[in-house]
Structure formats: structure tokens, C-alpha cells
């Protein structure tokens, strides 16, 4: 046993002391950190302001577009102001208002099916402001910001840094000097206007007072109201429809991907058109607006939760989706370490160190030593990941990335961590057995790769099925794969949050352990026989024959 420990210590230090290992370890939190931080920074610093020129020949829409722009800007002010005030709130008050586990349970559920990067804070703020025009209206008031500051000043730390309002991203620019002077804008044809502005759109000429190029040109025709499309209009064929669309408002831009501005303009014009329709039909737009913002209270409940707390919270939703992250980590962790095992075994075999080892320790001791050493590497990697994950999340948690705090709470409270550890070690034992056997039969890494081709296809299954199983944790795919011991660790990790039936949990667990022990026994036999083999890896039947012979001998 002592020798196993010496071998384990060497395996551990050889793998855990490499630069590659630490790069790999730190890569995960770094990617997580960057994937949250970079878009934020880009949004804040790198995203250029979008200057556009509006030619409203109808004269009916420039005001509403201006209001929409201002409202859009004030929304970003409000968001930043909220973040600023909660950042500089006195710590003791912050503790009071910090979301407790109970608060988290009561937060409204969000839909994460589109991905985990949804900025909950932003999404919630939009929802809040859409529902409550008064708050935005207050802040849109010229003194609104000051009033807000006064209201919160008692809660803030002394002398907080001054609030820096965000940049304006969408800016309506004046006509470039001299560009349109030769035209009578009220009557000029759209072709002439576009032709006059094209050099600016193509960045051949720049607009005054701006380093950024002209982002877009919006042209609203004089007969804009005749171009309004109504549900009762006779439907047009595709060609005619395209022609009809051209006659309406035109949005010219070389950037086809950033749709913020085009959407804002379109929405503002549509809203105004709709408002005028109401007036035309003798309906009071105010009343309509109130009616439109009227809705029924709606909540989702989970019958599995404790009585009185069945309402589905944000934490619940995160808890349902967190296992996918865990499955992915599990997969990466297991295959990173078993690959180390494979490479080390092939290395020892190819340079014949194995023979010296065999003169000092039994094959079983060598195998145990390798398994323990590499398991230690895996454990270090996971502890590293989780510590850094919690570190990054804790650092991030706050008003800007609200879900980070919730996720920390979910990770700590959900009981997924012990399960993760359990499934890591059982998965590790099964796959370590397979990889060790492959390693012991191959003389070079290249030979091992030939085996790996087939193995990789089998190993990809947990990744391919990860999302389907999370969506339908009790479906036939999930149940079937649960009983395939090779996949049990991944599938059960994925199903863990959905309270799988006890029979599946315990039964597949037992099967998995039996499989793990069988794999270790089996690979110890192959290892014994394989490590001293030279030449081509054996054919399958040859392998079985040799196993039988070696069994007789011992």
C-alpha cells in the first residue's frame, strides 16, 4: 500500500505541477468571468454611439421619435442609477435589504431556456418600468434625478462618488452641413435625399461634431399616412408587398446586425400611428393605454414543494437548470483526468519505466497508485473550479449580475455538490478502468488515439443528450440512459434536481458501482497482461484468449 501512495504522490505531482494543469484550472473561472464582464464592458465602453439623420417629410413623427429616444436614454440612466445607489448604500442597510434566502424564493421566475446569460437585473428593470410609467416619468422630469438622489441620500455612505450618467448610445444628428441645402426637404424625392446622404452612410464623408460615422438615415415620406398597413387590407403578393414596403418609412444603414435603433424608430412610429387610429375611431388613447397595461396575476407552482411555498421562484428555475452546468463540468473533469491517466500509462509503457515499477510494486499496487494520484488531481481541479466559481460569483453578485447571488445560494443549498462528488468518483472509476486498459495495451500515444476514436463517440452521448434530459428528466431517454452504467453519472447528475424516483436513484447507483468495480477488476487483468506487451495492440479475440490464459496461470 505504501508503494501505491508513493506512486500516487508522483502521479499527482507530475500532473498537478504542470503549467497546463493550472492554465486549465484557471481557464474555467476566467471564461466565466470574461463571459459576464466583457459584454458589460463592451456595452459600456466600446459600443459606439449610433448617430442617425431623420428626414421627416410628413412632419408627423419627429417628435415622437425624439421622445422615444429620450425615454430609451432615461431607462439606461435609471438602471445605472439603481446600480449606483445599491453599490453605495451603507453596508448595514445593505445587509438588511440584501435578498435573504426567503426573498430569493419569492423572486419571480425567469425563463432560462434561452441560455444562462440573461441579465436578470436588466430584464426585471424593463418589466418593472413598463409596468410602472410613473417611476420613469418621475426620473424623466428635469429635476427627477436630483429628487431621487435626495430621497436615497440618507441610505448612502458618506461622500459617495458622483453619479456618472451613461453615454447616449442613440443620437439624432442634425443634417450634415451643406449636404441637403440644395434640396427642398418637404418635396424632394426620396432618391435625391438618399443620394445626398449616401457618402455619409458609406463613411466617405463625416458628419460634423462626431467622431463616429453616420449610422443610419431614416426617411419618412410626405404621404406616410397613406402607407399605413391595416389588418383589413387585401393581402398582396410577395413582390407587391415588397414594393409597398418600400413606399413606407425607409431605414438606411450599412450595419445590418445592430437593430436597436431601427426597432426603436419603428416602435415609436407604430405607437404614434396606433394612437392616431384610436383618435380617428373616437377612442381615448389614455384609456386604451390603461387597458393595455391591465393584466391578471399569474404564478407558476410546483406541487413537489413544501405546502405554502409551492410558488416557483427564480432560485427554483436556476436549480432546475444548474445540473446542466454540473453535467458539463463533470464531463470535462472526468475526461481531463482519465486522459492524463491514459497518457501517463502509455508514457511509462513506451519508455519501459513500467518494468522498473513492476520490479518494485505489484501491478495492482501500480494501478491503485495511479488511480489514487489522478483522482487527487481531479479533486484538486474540482475544488479549484468550485472555489473560483464561488469567488467569481461572489465578486460578480450584486445589482449588476443579480443571478450570480442566486446561483451561489442554489449551489450551496441544493445538495448538488455532494452528488457531484459522488458521480465524479464513480464515473471516474468506470472510465479510468477503460482508459487504463487502453493505455496498458498501447505502446504509443498514436496507437491509443486509434482506440480513442471509437471511445470518443460513445463518450459524447452525455453531452448530446444533456439539454433534452434537463427538459424532460423523467422521459424515456433519461430513464433509458440512467440504466446504462457508462452514462449513469451524467444522466443522474442531470436528473438530480428533478427528484428522480428512488428506484432509479438507488438502483442505477448500485448498478454503477458494480460496473465500476467490474471495470477496475477487468482493467487490472488487462493492465497486468498489457503493460509488458510489445508490438501491435492485440485483436479483441486475442485479448480474450490471453485473459483466459493469464487467469489460469495465476
Amino acid at each position, binding site marked *: 500500500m505504501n508503494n501505491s501512495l508513493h506512486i500516487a504522490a508522483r502521479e499527482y505531482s507530475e500532473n498537478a505541477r504542470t503549467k497546463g494543469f493550472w492554465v486549465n484550472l484557471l481557464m474555467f473561472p476566467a471564461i466565466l468571468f470574461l463571459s459576464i464582464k466583457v459584454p458589460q464592458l463592451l456595452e459600456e465602453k466600446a459600443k459606439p454611439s449610433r448617430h442617425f439623420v431623420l428626414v421627416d417629410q410628413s412632419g408627423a413623427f419627429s417628435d415622437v421619435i425624439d421622445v422615444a429616444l429620450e425615454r430609451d436614454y432615461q431607462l439606461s440612466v435609471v438602471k445605472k442609477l439603481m446600480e449606483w445607489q445599491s453599490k453605495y448604500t451603507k453596508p448595514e442597510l445593505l445587509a438588511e435589504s440584501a435578498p435573504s434566502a426567503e426573498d430569493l424564493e419569492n423572486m419571480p421566475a425567469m425563463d432560462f431556456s434561452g441560455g444562462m446569460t440573461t441579465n436578470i437585473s436588466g430584464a426585471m428593470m424593463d418589466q418593472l418600468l413598463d409596468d410602472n410609467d410613473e417611476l420613469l416619468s418621475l426620473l424623466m422630469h428635469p429635476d427627477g434625478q436630483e429628487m431621487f438622489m435626495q430621497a436615497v441620500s440618507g441610505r448612502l455612505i458618506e461622500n459617495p462618488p458622483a453619479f456618472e450618467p451613461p453615454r447616449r448610445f442613440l443620437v439624432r444628428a442634425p443634417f450634415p452641413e451643406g449636404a441637403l441645402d440644395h434640396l427642398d426637404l418637404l418635396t424632394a424625392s426620396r432618391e435625391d435625399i438618399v443620394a445626398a446622404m449616401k457618402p455619409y452612410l458609406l463613411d466617405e464623408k463625416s458628419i460634423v461634431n462626431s467622431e463616429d460615422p453616420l449610422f443610419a438615415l431614416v426617411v419618412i415620406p410626405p404621404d406616410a399616412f397613406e402607407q399605413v398597413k391595416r389588418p383589413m387590407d387585401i393581402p398582396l403578393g410577395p413582390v407587391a408587398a415588397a414594393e409597398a414596403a418600400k413606399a413606407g418609412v425607409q431605414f438606411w444603414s450599412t450595419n445590418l446586425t445592430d437593430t436597436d435603433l431601427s426597432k426603436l424608430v419603428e416602435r415609436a412610429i407604430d405607437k404614434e400611428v396606433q394612437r392616431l387610429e384610436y383618435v380617428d375611431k373616437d377612442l381615448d388613447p389614455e384609456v386604451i393605454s390603461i387597458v393595455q397595461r391591465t393584466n391578471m396575476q399569474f404564478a407558476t407552482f410546483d406541487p413537489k414543494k413544501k405546502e405554502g411555498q409551492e410558488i416557483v421562484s427564480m432560485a427554483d428555475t436556476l436549480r432546475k437548470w444548474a445540473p446542466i452546468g454540473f453535467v458539463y463540468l463533470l464531463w470535462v473533469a472526468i475526461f481531463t483526468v482519465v486522459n492524463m491517466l491514459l497518457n501517463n500509462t502509455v508514457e511509462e509503457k513506451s*519508455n*519501459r519505466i513500467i*518494468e522498473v515499477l513492476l*520490479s518494485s510494486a505489484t501491478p495492482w499496487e501500480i494501478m491503485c497508485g495511479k488511480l489514487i494520484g489522478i483522482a487527487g488531481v481531479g479533486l484538486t481541479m474540482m475544488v479549484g473550479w468550485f472555489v473560483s466559481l464561488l469567488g467569481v460569483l461572489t465578486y460578480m453578485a450584486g445589482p449588476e449580475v443579480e443571478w450570480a447571488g442566486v446561483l451561489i445560494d442554489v449551489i450551496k443549498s441544493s445538495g448538488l455538490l455532494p452528488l457531484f462528488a459522488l458521480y465524479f468518483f464513480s464515473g471516474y472509476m468506470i472510465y479510468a478502468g477503460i482508459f487504463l486498459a487502453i493505455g496498458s495495451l498501447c505502446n504509443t500515444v498514436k496507437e491509443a488515439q486509434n482506440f480513442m476514436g471509437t471511445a470518443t463517440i460513445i463518450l459524447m452521448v452525455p453531452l448530446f443528450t444533456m439539454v433534452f434530459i434537463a427538459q424532460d428528466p423523467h422521459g424515456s431517454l433519461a430513464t433509458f440512459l440512467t440504466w446504462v452504467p457508462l452514462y449513469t453519472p451524467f444522466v443522474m447528475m442531470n436528473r438530480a434536481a428533478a427528484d428522480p424516483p428512488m428506484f432509479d436513484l438507488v438502483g442505477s447507483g448500485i448498478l454503477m458501482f458494480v460496473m465500476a468495480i467490474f471495470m477496475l477488476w477487468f482493467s487490472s487483468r488487462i493492465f497486468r497482461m498489457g503493460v509488458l506487451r510489445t508490438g501491435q495492440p492485440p485483436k479483441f479475440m486475442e485479448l480474450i484468449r490471453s485473459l483466459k490464459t493469464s487467469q489460469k496461470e495465476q
Partner: protein
Amino acid sequence: MNDTTPYAVELHGITKRYGDFTAVKSIDLVVPKGSIYGFLGPNGAGKTTTIRMILDIVKPTEGSLAVLGAPTAMDVRERIGYLPEEKGLYKKMKAWGVIAYFAKLKGMNGKAAKARAYELLERYGLGEFADKKVETLSKGMGQKVQVLASIAHSPEFVILDEPFSGLDPSNQQVMEDVIKDMNDAGSTIVFSTHVMSHAERICDRILLIASAEKVFDGTIDEAKAVIPKIVHVEGVDDGNKLSTLPGVDSVRHSDGDGIGCFEVTMKDSANPQDLMRNCFQSGLELTAFQYHEPTLHDVFLHLVGDDAKVASVR
């Protein structure tokens, strides 16, 4: 465990078969403690398999063995050192680390193993490379490190499989010194080699294996005695006179060397000195009398020459 035995190794009819192929066939051997034993034989003769069976790396198909009185080498592994035929080390480890690691596997404690590693590297001229990674060492240095790794725990019994292969002449000399040093310190050494001159210089006894079977086992002198003594004489008119002399087994005219040149094969017990004296006494006027004591190389070719050729073709 009976360690009062005078033998480091005892093999009784050990045989190793892989399917239909017999790698080693019924070899009996005793290696006395304190001796230097050379395993000689052509490629593929079964030397390495025999060594692996001694070390309990592979199990014999038939026969029994004892190593330092124990039924398997694994029981006394702390007292055994082993250098395999193909040399390799952990490239990413430091020179001292490799030596200390293998010493620890042989039961030394960590501190002592480290101190011993530095001491050995210093003694055999690698002191300045002790903290270098193995991958930065030259091939010869790497081999030295491996040799030191196999003997760092001061084993009583050391097995070296082809210790001289790949070494330049000066390092071969160092290797010979290492073997002699260990033997002086009381260790029993078994080594296999193709290079007869090394075996001849340092072995007390040799085992010759060919085609999986033992061909010879004994001291160097006994090995040389296996070959008939042949004397080359010149200036003799009549070959028949030679064949009547005492101690002469047969006489052959050696073609191509000219008239009066003969090759005299002597009887086992006869002495070339006596033959010379007898020639003079019987009035033969010799112009030349040449006797070369056979080398181990001659013995090797004599005993396993055909097998060696067969093996090299195989």
C-alpha cells in the same frame, strides 16, 4: 523466509511458454551470494524472460525458484535492484527526483532517499545535473541516472539487463566500476550482455543461453576449457610425427599457410607448454609455435554460433 541460503537465486527447471512459443525451457541455475554472474546468449535466447521470471514480473509456466531465500522476488523487493534492458525515465522529473522516487518504492524514507540521490549523483560525476530535468540530460547521462536509480537503496542483489548497451567506452568503464563497487560492498550482481569482453573482465561465473535452453553454466575458466586448445605450428616436415606426441588429439594441415604449417588440436588435459617441450625433445625443428588462449568470444561462438546466426536472421 529462509535467508541462510548461500544463493541469491535458485532456479529449478523454470520454463516460460507463450502459447506455442517456448521462451525459456527448463533452466536450472544457482547464483552464489556475492558473485558477479553474467547471462550471455544471442538475441531472443531467453535472457530477458529469465530475468523477468527471477524478478516476478512474469510468472514461470513450470518450475520453481527462490530469490534471496524467498519464493518470489516481490517478497524481498526492497533488497533487489533492477535495470531493464530498454532504458527510460520520467522526462519531466529532476534527476535526483527520479533516483529518490525509485529508492522510496524500494522502502527508503523520503529524506534518506533524497540525500542518497544527491550523494550518488555527486560520486558518479553528475552532481551539477542533480536539479536538472531528465529531458535536458544527454542519453548517456540519462542512462547513468537510471543505473543509479536502480541501486540507490543499496540492494543486496542487483539485476542489470544489458547495462552496457548504448554507452560510450568511457561510460562503459564507469558502468564496470559501478558493478565492481557494488560487488565489493557485498552485493550479488547478475547482468546480461552481448559484449563478451565485459563479461570476461568482471564475471565470476556465466550462464549461456541459446534457443531458450541453458548451454553452459560455470566459471570463465571452465567456459574456456570447453573449447579444445589449438596450437599453430610451422616448419614441420611430417605431420604424422606431430600426431604421435603425447597430449595431441589430432593434427590438420592448415591450407593456405604454406608447406609445414599445421593446426594441432590438443587433448583436454594437455598443456601447450608440454607440447612445445615434446616437439623439441623429439627433434622437430619449429620455425613458429603459436598458442592463443581462447576468449569468451570464441567460447560463445563455439557454443552458440549457429543459434546466434539463426537468432539474428529470425
